[in-house]
């Protein structure tokens, strides 16, 4: 009788232990999960973390992060995240806060250790060179979030990411720092080549929105103007005619549009001025450093090809 009760007790304890092991978080063997909001940030995270972390991206290449419509699956992705890596400067503000709340994950609330945004590491851009005073007045420096298109800012944010990852997962600190050096090296090796290529191949450029301003600054490309200075508001006919004058004065050869923009307006302007219009990607498929550097390679190559 006593023996039977003892056996029952052991079985019960074993069951409890089993349940506890299932319910409680596992030991430190699990990888750190990083969720990035855009593909380029996922590539930076992969460059630093590589096999020591698990990286997931919320938006895919080709999706406009400004107007992204998250699905329930995206909230589940955030539920298990250890670090949320965002662009910041308002890019994701229309959909990310509610998604974080929906995920119920306290670790990734803005301000906590599990939330890193570009705004934590860098300042937004100032007024780029080559702009008229009218354009400067429409320029809102705190509203331009497209910093990942400047490779040097990519390095700065990668440094902040390295520090943050080391805090979360101190065991691998040395490995993260080693990869940061490689990442930095890869970019600084390519940067002079990119700049040379652009100096030879392109003059002043008109773009649709202010998306590529960081890229232009990094590659020393002159900006002649925007087709839509205020996002989502149709330009006036007078402004379009003004742009035609600018194209003539500055010998602009090329108009860049994002994959998401209204191509009809850009095409109309290009046709009226007798110049070319091209679609420039702001993200490219690929893994880690190779993916991030490959994005610039592809952009530079496309611009060079269209400039001829």
């Amino acid at each position, binding site marked *: 009788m006593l023996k039977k009760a003892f056996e029952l007790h052991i079985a019960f304890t074993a069951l409890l232990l089993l349940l506890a092991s299932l319910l409680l978080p596992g030991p430190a063997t699990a990888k750190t999960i990083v969720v990035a909001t855009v593909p380029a940030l996922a590539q930076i995270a992969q460059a630093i973390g590589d096999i020591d972390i698990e990286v997931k991206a919320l938006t895919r290449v080709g999706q406009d992060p400004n107007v992204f419509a998250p699905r329930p699956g995206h909230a589940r992705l955030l539920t298990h995240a250890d670090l949320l890596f965002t662009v910041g400067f308002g890019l994701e503000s229309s959909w990310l806060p509610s998604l974080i709340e929906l995920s119920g994950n306290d670790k990734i609330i803005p301000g906590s250790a599990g939330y890193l945004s570009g705004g934590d590491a860098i300042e937004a851009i100032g007024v780029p060179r080559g702009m008229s005073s009218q354009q400067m007045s429409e320029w809102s420096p705190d509203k331009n979030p497209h910093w990942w298109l400047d490779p040097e800012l990519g390095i700065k944010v990668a440094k902040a990411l390295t520090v943050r990852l080391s805090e979360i997962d101190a065991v691998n600190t040395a490995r993260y720092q080693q990869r940061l050096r490689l990442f930095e090296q890869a970019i600084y090796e390519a940067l002079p080549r990119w700049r040379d290529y652009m100096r030879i191949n392109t003059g002043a450029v008109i773009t649709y929105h202010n998306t590529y301003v960081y890229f232009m600054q990094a590659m020393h490309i002159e900006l002649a103007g925007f087709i839509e200075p205020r996002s989502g508001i149709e330009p006036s*006919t*007078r402004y379009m005619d003004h742009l035609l004058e600018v194209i003539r004065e500055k010998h602009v050869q090329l108009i860049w549009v994002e994959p998401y923009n209204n191509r009809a307006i850009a095409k109309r302007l290009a046709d009226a001025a007798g110049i070319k219009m091209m679609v420039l990607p702001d993200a490219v498929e690929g893994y880690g450093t190779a993916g991030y550097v490959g994005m610039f390679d592809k952009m530079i190559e496309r611009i060079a090809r269209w400039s001829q």
Partner: protein
Amino acid sequence: MILLTVLVATLVIAVCLPVLGQRVLERRIVFVDLALAQVAATGYALGMAIDVPGVFAAAATTAIAVIFMAMMDEETPLPKEAVMGCVYVFAASVGMVLLSLLPYGEGQLMGLLFGSVLGIDWQGIGELALFSGIGLALALPNHTNSFSGRLRFYTGLSLIIVPAIYAIGVLLVFAYLVMPALSVWRRGHNGPAWEALTLAAIASIVGTFVADMLDLPPSATVVLTLAVIAVITGTIIHYNNLGPEEPEAPDTENKEKIEQEPEEILGAAHKK
């Protein structure tokens, strides 16, 4: 230069759309333009998903929607406006699901739905005029309330509206379709077509030049100008029609109808 194409494009729709708008208004199917445009855009997205040229896929889905609409009797007890609204939300939802599966889909569909009057060139204006001409020839002549008659009407309608929205955007098309016709509407019936046409043309000219002078977005400015002119005209027409002579005309029409109807019903019964 760009000012000129904008002006001519808004004048072309000012000539084509108000007359069509009167047909749309008397049938109480104002949502038809949004529904057709959305069906076409969704068709375009579907085409991209299954690797068929978008224009053909858009034409195919629009044709299906046109056949579906033509199946609906004009005297149907259903509120037609509600049916059009349902077609719109259904097509929009299908489009959204398709887009969630396609990279770069959003930009394409937005481009389709929100064409811009700034983006149109002379070739585009020519195409717009051509489609509108064919569409008006199909939609304007009186049709019988039969499947073939309704099919001709809706085909004509879609030939005008879908290319127009693609070329110059929802805002302008909706405004030019509805506002002039609504403005000259009186006592439950359409007013003279020339009135609607004239005020639409005035709005095109005034709106385009005001937008250029004040450095404002042309589409929205033209629509606002049209709205102002339409409200003024509508108010004048309303008060002019309060006179003693005019009301008799619709009344006699009504009386005639009431007198005719029993006969018709009897006649139909006798025939059977």
